[in-house]
């Protein structure tokens, strides 16, 4: 993996990590909880993040084979 590839992979993973933390970690304080973002169920957003992570891993594998 070249330095540039490594850096862009690192950036992708960093954004995914941020969203993953925001949605899956942190203390839960129950107020009037809204479980949707712009009408999209958060569970669905979580799934999208998961799929994106898998996509990143596959890409990583493909790159390392080259």
């Amino acid at each position, binding site marked *: *993996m070249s330095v540039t590839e490594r850096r862009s*992979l*690192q950036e992708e*993973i*960093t*954004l995914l*990590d*941020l*969203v993953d*933390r*925001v*949605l*899956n*970690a*942190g*203390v*839960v*304080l*129950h*107020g*009037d*909880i*809204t*479980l949707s*973002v*712009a*009408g999209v169920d*958060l569970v669905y*957003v979580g799934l999208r993040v998961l799929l994106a992570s*898998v996509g990143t*891993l596959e890409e*990583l*594998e493909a790159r*390392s*084979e080259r």
Partner: protein
Amino acid sequence: MIHLYAIVRGLAALPDRAGIGGAQLDAKAVDDVVAVTSILSDEPEPADGAVAHGLVVEALVDVADAVVPVRYGARFPDAAALVATVSGQLPALRERLASVEGCVELSVRLLASDDAPTVATDGTAYMQERLHAVRATEQLADAVHEPLARRARASVRHRRLDRAVVHDGCYLVERQRTDAFRSLVEAFGTDHPEVTVVCTGPWAPYNFAVAPERAA
């Protein structure tokens, strides 16, 4: 509607950053802790609301002594409801603030570069081969985790179903020790070219916002 980002202590000043939808951040003192909030408009929430939430929490790490990130989704109809909820959780929040004070979170993952091709010709041999592979993976995960955990105030290991993820750990590290910690991670990567080492952070201590025994 009030959106809650984090509970902090020792806040020097609010970060120079807008909240969700460009809203101004607000600091609401509840006894000895501070709730960082912003007002949500009635407009549909912007699609990048979760990212905006995360960026505010990260900015708080630079301006407060201790930050307990709140999971995205804590909304309150008014200030009274917010204060009532935070007051009800004060002992646990104080305990968490003390445990993460002066620390950041670093994430370390080991990703297998490739799955060794199977050479087994029958079921038993295949299972034995898999067993060896799994054991080797576990040993590698322990080899990276144990020295890092010793240099961290606390650590968590996430179990991942994906076989490519050899290790996924989060470490609560004192701020002034993050460089030394990173060097250790880098050295491990140099010694083990068979895996890709991905270290991200420093993050706000999301994975230590809840006491370990109560964590999911």
